[in-house]
């Protein structure tokens, strides 16, 4: 920070304190605020997420579907290449995948489906279909939590026309707060955390909703987990 910015910082802080009718906060009060940050208390959590795990999975599916995501459900990861190929064929989409270099996706035998061609890494502008590793699914609003990291590049969520997110049903939680608690447990705040609810859209032209603005036109979520977890 240069000297000018320092002066401006001092001037702004002085103006705020003048308005608040006090000087800098005394140490005991700063410590209380620091303690509140460290405790980061929750406020109201909507009652709609007070469900057992099977109920949360159903709520996630219902909410994500309402926001125009499509959902598939497989028992285990070995079925993933076939499930993705089937989806792409049905949508008449190209079989070329750019896949997140994440351990859970790298360990899959993609050659099991000979129609698919695969590349691991960040997305390029010309990529049509990406496969991303989902960190959590938030049932409250059918929202995916997609943090950045070496194995989960952000561009996979943005550049391709179609994004496929692979999510373990065990990673479906109720409120946003639960997903952030998991993120805190996993380590420091990642550079980028996207909360994604359905595919990209805009209503800027005459207030008519159109999917596929700048981000993906299609968001396809493949849930992985034993069937007995679902209530239906």
């Amino acid at each position: 920070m240069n000297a000018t910015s320092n002066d401006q910082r001092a001037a702004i802080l002085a103006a705020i304190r003048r308005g608040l009718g006090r000087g800098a906060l005394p140490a005991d009060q700063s410590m209380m605020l620091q303690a509140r940050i460290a405790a980061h208390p929750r406020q109201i959590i909507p009652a709609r997420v007070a469900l057992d795990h099977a109920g949360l999975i159903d709520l996630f599916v219902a909410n994500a579907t309402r926001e125009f995501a499509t959902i598939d459900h497989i028992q285990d990861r070995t079925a993933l290449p076939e499930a993705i190929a089937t989806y792409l064929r049905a949508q008449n989409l190209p079989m070329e995948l750019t896949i997140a270099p994440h351990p859970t996706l790298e360990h899959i035998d993609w050659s099991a489906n000979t129609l698919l061609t695969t590349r691991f890494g960040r997305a390029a502008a010309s990529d049509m279909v990406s496969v991303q590793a989902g960190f959590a699914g938030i049932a409250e609003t059918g929202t995916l939590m997609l943090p950045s990291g070496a194995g989960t590049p952000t561009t996979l969520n943005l550049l391709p026309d179609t994004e496929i997110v692979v999510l373990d049903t065990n990673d479906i939680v109720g409120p946003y707060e639960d997903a952030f608690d998991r993120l805190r447990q996993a380590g420091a705040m990642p550079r980028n955390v996207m909360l994604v609810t359905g595919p990209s859209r805009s209503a800027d032209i005459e207030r008519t909703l159109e999917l596929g603005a700048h981000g993906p036109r299609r968001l396809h979520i493949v849930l992985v987990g034993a069937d007995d977890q679902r209530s239906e």
Partner: protein
Amino acid sequence: MLNTSPDFKENVRHAMADAGLQKALDRAKKPFALSRANAVAGLPEFEALRETAKGIKNHTIAHLDYYLEAFTSQVESKGGQVHWCRTAEDARNAVLGICQRVGARTATKGKSMISEEIGLNDFLAEQGIEPIETDLGEYILQLRNEAPSHIIGPAFHLNREDWEESFRAAHTHLPADRVFAEKRDIQAEARAVLREKFLAADVGITGANFLIAETGTSIIVTNEGNGDLTQTLPRVHIVLASLEKVVPTIEDTLSLLRVLARSATGQEFSVYTTFSTGPKRPGDLDGPEEYHVVLLDNGRSNMVGSEFQDMLRCIRCSACMNHCPVYLTVGGHAYGSMYSGPMGSVLTPAIFGADQAHLLPSASTFCGKCESVCPVKIPLTGMMRHWRERAFERNLSPATGRYGIGIWGFFARRPALYRAVTRIASWSLGLAGRKRGSFRSLPLAGAWTKDRDMPAPEGETFFARYAREQRSR
């Protein structure tokens, strides 16, 4: 930058005669109110969350100095930089300094009202750096050299013909005989044209809906994904944020997010709510190498401790304007400020000075609808009254405007216009179907009719009422 606020009444006349604008307003009116009402109905905790949201913001403002410093040290610890800027000019120079240091030729931009407030685009262009708006609405406004008319739907005043015309004029590299059969064809063309700009840009500039002190994070909330492309692809990410955007923790932010989208577009959650914390980490395959937050004051620190302090709670959801009978009659441009509607009527004079915008606080019928929908319960009508009184004390109102209550008188003396406004007010209050003329609860004057009946609208009657109201205070 401010354009024509002092000419509010002249602007109103233009707006009323603008058929395209009136068409756009007609289209928006009902959906605005309906979509919010549906979203609110879907969350039983919504009313309680409004109180929570208000409490979080009040707590933050009461300790604003602490949280801004905490935010700054968190950003720095993650390898980012915070540039504290007292004025719009300071902020413009901070952005320019970064752009020049990295040799930027183009900068893509996510939607940012702060950018509008400090007049960044014209300034960058003058300095040889091409700014490119990437939000669909902002993009067409840039092509048309127009100002936004709404804080979240900046181009909602335009009609499909306008989009086609502007795209044909601007995208001359595309076949002239191409057909825009559907609105999605317009959107697809913008997507394709802007994709190249995203990839070529040296700097990406976004706004911020919130800044989190706990983690040194900036948050953007969008539906298109343009803001994310803006902050992910270029080498440098600059965040423009005014200082009241800071919030203590992630949990506090989540409570605010729960009321934001519902109040704004009636969505339960926007498509992309993205948390950015510092530059690219070791091992990351994408993301910017530099992360800067330009933290703007521009008059806000002076609102702390003033009768306008509550305005600092505003989370820019636009619910107040979406439900305002005046806004929905005249549109956003009439206000001559990037901040329009009730929130703009309070904020514009606070930022640009009462002498610049003293007529705006009169642009209210004091129906109170704005306050009843505001997710952080800002007493908007009370603050508009404060401004009006200040203007009177300083004798700023022009002679013709000194009839007491600005817009009320303006509308009251124009019966057709008045009826247009009351019609909007009655549906926006959910009172459609009530017989017009029986103004037991006149939508434009809730405060006055709460304890008394009011006869059908006639200017004189109103003035008498207003005078009595003033005397009895």
